[in-house]
């Protein structure tokens, strides 16, 4: 394999991994606060369709991304009302959010299927992009990819060094102790949840505005679910989410890699790879029961009942 092919593969890996990275980072924050939102797929779909429609009608891509983020947050609000305020089962609510998001996005996107727009163009960072291999892979991407790098760094610093970061972790571990020391459990969970919605919406908008600039029903193709698995894979650590998202990006573009090596395998078979990889990774990580229990936030998925 020559160096140019390798560069192209790594470039595609980062691009393909970006929507996974965005959605997984959002869900990471959400889960750190103890809220398990299985509705990522639905929020992504809404982000994708709303972002696409907004960008197509106004011609402004950034506005499209903003609207996608808003759509994801609106969906997260629905989840919050049911799962945080009304203390519904988080698993069932998340599933409902995904099913609802799939239906609603298909409904409002009906008239936009098959239309195209010119999506985000690469922004070549001066100087840095001249570095061999890495210059193309990391510094010749579009604006949203750079944004994903920045969010990664900010979140890492947030959980490592900041007081609110510690607060969210404490709330996720034990909401009742957190209440006892005066931390605002419900508001913090809302903020974490809304951040998750915004990130999922942005991940969806990345798909419909940059990755493949069009709208198609169910175009996220399970990326929201893979994002959920990525959080487990990353043991709830920001830097590992980045690594995991790119690895899964690589798994998704294996057909490029194999074509490069001259192998011919059915594209349908290769399309199963990211899903298969998800299962394998989950099995490897969960087979050690005590370890997986140690890593997950203690109160993950459990409704919080303030004062009885």
């Amino acid at each position, binding site marked *: 394999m020559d160096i140019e092919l390798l560069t192209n593969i790594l470039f595609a890996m980062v691009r393909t991994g970006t929507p996974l990275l965005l959605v997984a980072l959002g869900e990471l924050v959400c889960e750190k606060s103890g809220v398990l939102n299985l509705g990522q797929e639905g929020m992504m779909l809404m982000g994708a369709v709303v972002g696409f429609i907004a960008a197509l009608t106004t011609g402004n891509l950034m506005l499209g991304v903003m609207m996608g983020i808003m759509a994801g947050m609106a969906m997260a609000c629905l989840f919050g009302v049911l799962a945080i305020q009304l*203390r519904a089962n988080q698993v069932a609510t998340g*599933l409902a959010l995904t099913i*609802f998001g799939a239906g609603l996005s*298909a409904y409002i996107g009906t008239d936009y299927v098959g239309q195209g727009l010119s999506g985000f163009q690469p922004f070549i960072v001066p100087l840095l992009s001249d570095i061999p291999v890495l210059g193309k892979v990391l510094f010749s991407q579009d604006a949203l990819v750079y944004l994903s790098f920045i969010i990664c760094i900010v979140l890492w610093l947030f959980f490592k060094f900041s007081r609110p970061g510690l607060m969210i972790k404490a709330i996720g571990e034990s909401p009742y102790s957190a209440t006892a020391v005066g931390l605002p459990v419900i508001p913090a969970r809302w903020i974490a949840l809304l951040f998750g919605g915004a990130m999922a919406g942005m991940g969806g908008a990345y798909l419909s505005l940059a990755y493949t600039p069009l709208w198609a029903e169910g175009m996220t193709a399970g990326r929201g679910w893979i994002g*959920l698995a990525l959080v487990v894979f990353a043991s709830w650590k920001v830097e590992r989410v980045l690594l995991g998202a790119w690895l899964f990006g690589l798994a998704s573009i294996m057909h490029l890699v194999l074509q490069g090596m001259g192998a011919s395998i059915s594209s*349908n078979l290769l399309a199963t790879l990211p*899903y298969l990889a998800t*299962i394998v990774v989950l099995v490897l990580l969960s*087979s050690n029961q005590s370890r997986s229990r140690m890593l997950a936030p203690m109160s993950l998925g459990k409704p919080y009942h303030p004062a009885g």
Partner: protein
Amino acid sequence: MRIAIERRPYDSNLMKYLSPVLAIVLTLISGGLIFMIQGQDPWAGLYTFFILPVSDSYGWSELGVKAAPVLLCAMGLSVCYRANIWNIGAEGQLLMGALIGSWAALSWMDSSSSWVLPAVLACGAIGGLLWALIPAVLKNHFNTNEILTSIMLNYIALNLLLLAVHGPLKDPHGFNFPESALFTDAVTLPIIMEGTRLHLGLILGLFAVATLWVVMARTFLGFQLKVIGLDASAGHFAGYQQRRLVYFSLLLCGALAGLAGISEVTGPIGQLVPSVSPGYGYAAIIVAFLGRLHPVGILLASLLMALVYMGGEMGQIDLGLPLALGSLFQGMLLFYLLACDFLISYRLRIQPSVKPMAFPDTSTGVSQ
């Protein structure tokens, strides 16, 4: 004045059964509003969606045709959910049933033996069962969460199905369309009512309803499943073999979903196509919850879901509404149901506002 939320001393049985009804009413109201936004007369819209499809006897028979696969999947899922096993994989299990069953059907369809059709159905059930075996083994022996594995297997199953209809199972005389050859009569489900498309699949579904009703309500097995669903550690202390119960519920669901898949391809479709299921396996999740995991409730809910599918098509043909309106109604139904379920354990009470509080307020009141 303030509206206080307070926990009921006991869960309300009335609300448990009223909540699905309330959810349906709320969905209908929202549906009316959506029709208005679309510039339609809401009454005419609702009529087209929910009455017109069943305004003649053929419509009723089609309701049975559409309900059959949803019913089979939802019955299987209800057993899993009773045992607190979150199987989301009915869709993939259905597709694998259709795939393996079709493979058997295509291999044996020139035989004239009367055993061919039962064998094909069995292959379908086994296909679904084997697909459900994967999350069961992973859950039991590797402690892997079944939600993510079963949903990943849905995507894998769809790709395997596509692989098959584009490759090994493609009709050699089919002008390169991604479809299998048409099944012969030997491997086609018998029609149970002349002049309709009602097929044996519905009978299988009703049989599942009756059998599982007895199993869940009257046998020790059903009791064990409910116990581990309510409190896994209680089941553990009682000495129940949890792994066996996990296997039972997941494999049963897989077999029923597989049966649903093979009934679709050997019934109304008549060949293996890429679009075997318009999301029956996902709709079945809604049906299982809407039917309160009870066989009779699930039967009624699956008929409603079938009506939503038919209404979606009718709305597209008659009013030019997007087909996806049906999926939107499905999603709303589940959302409203979860919201209304809040009223099972909690109640709202309107209190006069000026009354001073003598005791610390243990309710979780929100002032309005």
